[in-house]
């Protein structure tokens, strides 16, 4: 049975994937680079993001909606293709394990102090493996069930923290280091839109591909705006320095909620948003990774790979980042994301353009 997801479900996945880890890191990263103007950087990246998304969908649609892996192979040939596929897959792998590591870190620092992180990773990865083994349909539908709750929590969080806003915190507007704004923009872009390159892997499961363009934007742009708004709120409520100092500003934002001394202490809402978006992000990436392995090894049953690979991810998420965490973000993750998320699609785009032109040239 060929499993298909609807284009709306795809938009939803895009939303969840974009919100994923970024909602907890972007405020910090942005405030580091842009201080008061952090939200402006995020807003600008949203506009740049439109082009990134368009590039992805165009790349996909121009090549008649083939799977990303066969697309790479078709455009770049067997050997170079394999290399690029391997780089792409290793990036996806890195993404999964890094996401898993961060969510585990969060849980063992904020929610379950004292529980060994092994157990938390184990629970997370087992659930993700069950989800991926049940197939993309079950995965997206699960996301669909939780989606309204995620959006509702986001809105609730934003609305309830509004009384704590202090406008002075964002002043002065646009008086900051310009180079920092640029670098910050690139970092943020790679934490948000460039990560969506992974979604190229599930685009061929969508049933109305011609609408992808529109719905990809519908999914990702609001998500990015949401992140902008959360960043703005973090700065408005917490101030610049705390936003850039706290590891999990959104959680602190939740702690700030106090309406009539009655609705208070509901920081769990932030944990809820983050845990679920991150979980679906891990699942999507894992699914794409499985697809890649299936493509390379040409096995009929891709489920056989889930368990060994999950062991690898487990091990990476367990202590892979401990030694590298503090500079991992901008020295490793961002460059790799730029390569995989921007240069590889660009390369594919150019190659497909040249090939098409030469084809038409040959014909005429």
């Amino acid at each position: 049975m060929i499993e298909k997801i609807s284009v709306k479900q795809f938009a939803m996945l895009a939303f969840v994937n974009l919100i994923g880890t970024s909602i907890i890191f972007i405020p910090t990263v942005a405030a580091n680079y842009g201080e008061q103007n952090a939200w402006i950087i995020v807003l600008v990246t949203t506009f740049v993001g439109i082009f990134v998304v368009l590039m992805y969908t165009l790349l996909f649609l121009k090549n008649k909606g083939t799977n990303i892996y066969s697309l790479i192979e078709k455009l770049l040939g067997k050997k170079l293709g394999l290399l690029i596929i391997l780089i792409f897959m290793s990036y996806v792998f890195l993404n999964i394990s890094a996401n898993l590591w961060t969510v585990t870190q969060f849980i063992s620092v904020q929610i379950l102090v004292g529980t060994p992180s092994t157990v938390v990773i184990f629970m997370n990865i087992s659930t993700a493996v069950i989800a991926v083994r049940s197939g993309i349909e079950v995965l997206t539908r699960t996301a669909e069930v939780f989606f309204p709750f995620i959006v509702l929590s986001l809105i609730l969080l934003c609305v309830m923290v509004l009384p704590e806003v202090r406008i002075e915190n964002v002043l002065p507007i646009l008086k900051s280091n310009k180079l920092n704004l640029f670098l910050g923009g690139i970092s943020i872009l790679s934490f948000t839109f460039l990560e969506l390159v992974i979604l190229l892997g599930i685009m061929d499961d969508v049933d109305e591909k011609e609408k992808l363009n529109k719905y990809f934007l519908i999914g990702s742009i609001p998500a990015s705006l949401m992140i902008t708004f959360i960043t703005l709120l973090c700065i408005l409520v917490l101030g610049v320095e705390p936003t850039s100092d706290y590891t999990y500003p959104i959680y602190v934002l939740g702690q700030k909620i106090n309406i009539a001394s009655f609705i208070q202490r509901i920081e769990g809402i932030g944990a809820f948003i983050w845990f679920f978006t991150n979980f679906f992000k891990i699942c999507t990436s894992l699914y794409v990774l499985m697809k890649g392995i299936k493509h390379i090894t040409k096995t009929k049953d891709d489920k056989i790979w889930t368990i060994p690979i999950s062991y690898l991810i487990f091990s990476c998420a367990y202590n892979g980042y401990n030694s590298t965490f503090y500079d991992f973000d901008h020295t490793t993750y961002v460059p790799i994301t730029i390569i995989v998320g921007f240069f590889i699609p660009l390369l594919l785009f150019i190659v497909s353009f040249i090939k098409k032109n030469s084809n038409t040239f040959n014909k005429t």
Partner: protein
Amino acid sequence: MSFFQKKSDKKQNINLTSNAAENKQVIYQALGESADITSRTISVDKQNQISMVLLYINGLVDQKIIQNMVLETLMIEMDEQTKQEVAQTPKDIQSIYQEFSLIAEELQTIEELILAILNGDTVFFIDGKTSGFSIKTQGDQTSRGVQQTTTQQVVRGPKDSFTESIDTNVALVRKRIKDPNLWSKKKVIGSKTHTTVVYAYLNGVVSSDLVTEVEERLSKIEVNSILESGNIEEFIQDETYTPFPTVYNTERPDAIAAGILEGRIAIFVDGTPDVLLVPVLFKHFLQSPEDYYQRSDIATLLRWLRTLALFLSLLTPSIYIALTTFHQEMIPTTLLISLAAQREGIPFPAFGEAVLMEITFELLREAGIRLPTTIGSAISIVGALVLGQATVEAGIVSAMMVIVVSLTAISSFVFPSYNFGISIRILRFGFMTLAATFGLFGIFIGLLLIVMHLVGLRSFGMPYLTPIAPFNKEAQTDTLLRLPIWKKTKQKKPN
């Protein structure tokens, strides 16, 4: 019938003889000379040479029919001449009975005859004929009349409920849908019980795939006995290892009629008032037939209330455990102080306390169902007083836990469908364990697993969570909302 034939082929066939008394003896022996078999011998001619033997089971037949129709027809209505003719050509008896609108069939084998007797028909032999005849004389003295429903009560709406008789049940539905497209098909299932199973649907509205699917699943059943629709349910449901019911059962004819009108298939089983309805979706368990008789805004609010009850009964104890043992920082200070004061000196951890109380409650509930109504109320007094009051005063359980458990208990009775409440109760224990081990994180994981399971479930090919995931905008008018009926422009198929 074909089903039976297939089985009986293996048996040894005893042929009928032309002697009626001998035939009677054969049948008597085949039935173990059971006490409830009655036979009457009548001579059909003046000379008392040709005799006719009637055989039937006392409790299954309508004595009136036998007395008034079968016997009188032979004794009074027939004149001497006819009697003679009958003796010569017994075939005509059939036509005589048919004249008096009693169906008479000619049966060749012993097995067929036995089956006819067991069905409540009257069988007779005539000397000189190697075949028997059966007359429909089924009388349903065993069944009760249509009474008020006991499990799914409504304030507004029809009060009648199905009975144990399948004919009555089908008739109750047909009374509501007077449409030539309401088709019903019959099957006999169970090599020992030969239970009649009828499935009914509205032709043209129902999808033909669904009909073939039901047909196929029903014919795959190979079992000795079908005593209740639950037996059928176990055979035809999509997924055995799931706490969620994938087949709906109800004893309300209006619910079945509504389901049929929506394009679903009802399965009636003889001998039980519980009629099955397939396919069923998750949302149906949060809906009551009454929703459609109430004002739409009230019905909508009631549905929200039930959805809330779903979450409450599933999660309240586990959230309580998670908050009090893991996330005390999320409880407002003053509340936490009073909780802490209540827990002072209580020997069990919160989890132990919760499990203890939940199990006690389940015991009470089970005991309350089994007992007669008069003693049932005594149980509730014992439960409320002894367990609620005394345990708290003895310092074994905290007062808050009693509140939590009673809240859960009340919420789990809100669902219109009883079996759905059971599955929620089972899952609750799983959630409690997860919460006791991982706090909120465990609850998150549990929710993910449950939802993943739910979206993977199918009921006769339909995704279980249908209007929610996959999302269907049109179906939202009747999922969590119940918009006025005229908003639903036309009757829709369930998919």
